[in-house]
């Protein structure tokens, strides 16, 4: 009997071993795939088990957290939600994250390994650190000035510090409060439905994700291409472009809004925004040269991140000469994000070089220790420094005595370019009013700010002046604020 009892005991041992092996299978070898199963609520529960880190503007958090007492416990709150929504995005238990909330989610939610005191600490403890903070490059007063300037009209403002690439203001209007999307439940779903069905598209990030035909502001790019290619050697010399200008290969006539554009010089064409001159120069540079030049500015770049993804600004790589002519004045298929046009202004202001634009200055632990810092990086050399110098002079002229006088600031060098982009089939849509500009204090070594403003519902007539009328004052307000901050910083 003892022998059989021992065998029965051995059977029990086999059962035990089976249990242990199975435990190791489930808890170690299959653990990762089970942990990551989308139906596993732990992912969400752990994610919201602690307050998120803050997004900081000018030393003050623009976000907060609220204990909901629900299973997905900590909900996001926003101070001045609509003002900062174009940079923060939302963080919602129901709809996920966008923009900086998305790009810096690891830091904000505390899963970033660098937040841990020791390497691999989190792997060992399977825990997470308190959420870290994200310090942005945004200047509150400039952001407010831009937001006030748009005043609820559809449009966007982007302001960049030309030599560093820091994004100082990023406004999209009309905006929304991302806080209404925090949490779960019917209220959140209703808010989501309302925001998504609103004809004003408040959740559309017009500064980074919407592209517009840049209209006449694009003439700066064409001018740079013409100067760099040697098509124009003397900006004051008359060009060989008739007014009106017949689009090559067609019988279609390109008109001017301005007068005196026949055979006008490049300087005159920038100052008064002559379509004919710039279209002619574009054709003269040629398709390959134009594509080369515009792509140095960042057009057709699908990989731009600030760190949020930026929509591609488009300049077609294959066109007939008449399409090229239209494209050279920012029409046809040419489209640009407001950020892209701010980069154009920035390139002129910064002697032809574009610094990589960025929105996140640094990330820190919840205790304030820096985890990562975004340094200045060069994006591209958009044009020769000499070309940039010449364009600076032309843009100054356009503001001093041209289409952009509404942006003039006493005691500062302000260069600008207006634009009114036609869109819609047969030109039926309301035109977009554009203004791109940069400003430099008289006593400063480098420009303080480059800015791009687009206003969708420009009320004025379809003249170039409307860019100067609707958009330039907003740009001026933002630039004044930048100059004031710079002066204050210099003491």
């Amino acid at each position, binding site marked *: 009997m003892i022998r059989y009892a021992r065998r029965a005991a051995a059977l029990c041992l086999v059962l035990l071993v089976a*249990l242990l092996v199975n435990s190791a299978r489930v808890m170690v070898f299959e653990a990762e795939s089970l942990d990551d199963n989308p139906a596993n609520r732990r992912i969400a529960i752990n994610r919201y088990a602690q307050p998120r880190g803050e997004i900081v503007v000018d030393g003050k958090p623009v976000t907060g957290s609220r204990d909901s007492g629900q299973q997905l416990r900590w909900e996001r709150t926003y101070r001045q939600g609509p003002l900062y929504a174009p940079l923060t995005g939302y963080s919602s238990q129901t709809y996920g994250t966008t923009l900086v909330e998305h790009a810096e989610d690891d830091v904000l939610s505390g899963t970033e390994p660098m937040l841990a005191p020791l390497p691999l600490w989190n792997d060992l403890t399977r825990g997470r650190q308190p959420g870290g903070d994200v310090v942005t490059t945004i200047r509150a007063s400039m952001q407010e000035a831009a937001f006030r300037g748009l005043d609820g009209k559809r449009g966007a403002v982007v302001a960049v510090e030309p030599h560093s690439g820091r994004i100082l203001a990023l406004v999209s209007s009309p905006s929304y409060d991302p806080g209404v999307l925090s949490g779960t439940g019917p209220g959140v779903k209703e808010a989501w439905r309302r925001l998504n069905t609103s004809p004003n598209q408040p959740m559309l990030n017009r500064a980074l994700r919407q592209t517009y035909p840049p209209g006449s502001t694009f003439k700066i790019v064409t001018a740079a291409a013409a100067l760099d290619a040697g098509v124009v050697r003397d900006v004051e010399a008359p060009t060989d472009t008739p007014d009106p200008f017949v689009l090559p290969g067609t019988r279609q006539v390109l008109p001017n809004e301005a007068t005196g554009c026949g055979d006008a010089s490049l300087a005159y064409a920038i100052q008064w925004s002559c379509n004919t001159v710039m279209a002619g120069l574009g054709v003269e540079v040629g398709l390959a040269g134009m594509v080369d030049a515009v792509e140095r500015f960042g057009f057709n770049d699908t990989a731009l991140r600030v760190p949020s993804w930026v929509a591609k600004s488009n300049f077609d790589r294959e066109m007939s000469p008449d399409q090229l002519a239209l494209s050279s004045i920012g029409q046809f298929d040419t489209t640009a994000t407001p950020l892209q046009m701010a980069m154009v202004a920035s390139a002129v202001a910064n002697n032809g070089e574009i610094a990589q634009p960025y929105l996140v200055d640094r990330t820190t632990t919840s205790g304030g220790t820096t985890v990562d810092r975004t340094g200045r990086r060069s994006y591209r050399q958009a044009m020769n420094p000499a070309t940039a110098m010449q364009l600076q002079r032309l843009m100054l002229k356009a503001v001093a005595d041209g289409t952009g006088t509404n942006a003039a600031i006493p005691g500062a060098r302000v260069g600008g370019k207006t634009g009114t982009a036609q869109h819609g089939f047969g030109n039926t849509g309301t035109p977009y009013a554009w203004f791109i500009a940069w400003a430099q204090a008289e006593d400063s070594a480098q420009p303080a700010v480059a800015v791009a403003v687009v206003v969708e519902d420009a009320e004025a007539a379809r003249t170039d002046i409307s860019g100067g009328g609707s958009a330039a004052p907003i740009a001026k307000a933002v630039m004044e604020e930048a100059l004031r901050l710079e002066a204050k910083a210099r003491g």
Partner: protein
Amino acid sequence: MTAPRTDAPPPGVRLPKRRGVELSLLVCAVLISVCGYAEVGLARSGAVPPDAVRYGAGLGLLALVAHLAVRFRAPYADPLLLPIAVLLNGLGLVLIYRLDLETPNDQAAATQLVWSTLGVALFIVVVLLLRDHRTLQGYAYVSVAAALALMILPIFFPAVNGAKIWIRIGGLSFQPGEFAKILLAVFFAAYLAANRNALAYTGRRIWIFQFPTGRVLGPIVAIWLLSVGVLVLERDLGTSLLFFGLFVIMLYVATGRTGWIAVGLVLASAGAFLVGSLEPHVHSRVQDWLDPFASIRAGDGPGQLAQSLFSFAAGGMLGSGLGLGHSVLIGFATKSDFILATAGEELGLVGLTALFLLYALLVARGYRAGLSLRDPFGRLLAIGLASIVALQVFVIAGGVMGLIPLTGMAMPFLAQGGSSVVTNWVIVALLIRVSDSARAPQPDDADTGTLAPVKEAA
């Protein structure tokens, strides 16, 4: 009536009693449980629960009283059995208390403590009143009658969650099938001890199989079929599986015929296949076992088994820490059938392995007592009781971890459930008694010969 014995210890050698070892292990068991209790409070609210001292005192008092009973009435008993039982019961209370925090409308820890107290009380009664386990041999047929009565009784009570295995009187519910397994083990042990020679060596031989005579085999198969039949009627598949396994193991140990195992396996497979394909409740569980994530793909969210697997996976190697897991997502039966998932998630593979080893130790000690006993009844009883624990742990742990299809059953001592805790305390009491007989010096060797007479059932 006496047989020459060769394996008795030489006269004059006294086995150590080891009661001091038992007491210090009990102190450790109580301390570990109290630390777990405090840990839950610290993790959840940053403070030790205010009643931690009371909890510790209560558990300590139960352990102490049980220890004193053992010290005076079973001084040679195995010193590991009681501490393991106290530790498992204490940890069970901690886990239930921890889960109570997630379910404010369903508090179970206090009730479980009452049942545990009752269990310990019964443990003491058994240790005090049952002076010699062989007394039970005379109650074999009383046992089986009582077992059947207990199992049939729930048929007259309404079903709870699809199974008719509860008796509800007033606010108390009781699962008589739990207790029936002890009675059945007693009957099997007594009957097999009396008839094992007849079962092994008589009867007709057909081809290579030697069949025992129907007169000997008949009654026990009838009893077994009856109990399994009743359980199937009541849809208590876990327990019917347990009875089946118990029967086969005891039959094998008693007769030593491997054929029984083969026959048992064939029968079990056929039965499992039939029930699995015919009974919709079981069928769905088999489906769930084969593919725990089917409901997720169908868009219905994770089922209980999937949630349980998520729990274990979330525990990983070291666990999330007591009070910090989310096993409550399993929902229904978190505190009973699925209690192991909480242990796995919050204590990790390390803690779970420790738990399994505790059970293994309990089972091993039961077997050891059986092996060192000289009377076949005691031996079979000890092995039967130990096998009950082993099978139960395997069936439920394998079920909630996806090793075998899930059948509802209580993790011994750990799971919420009054009848289960009480029954397991009685099992431990019987093992204590048996191990005391096994290790005590034998003044009356003549009584314990291998061919000890079996009283004809009264």
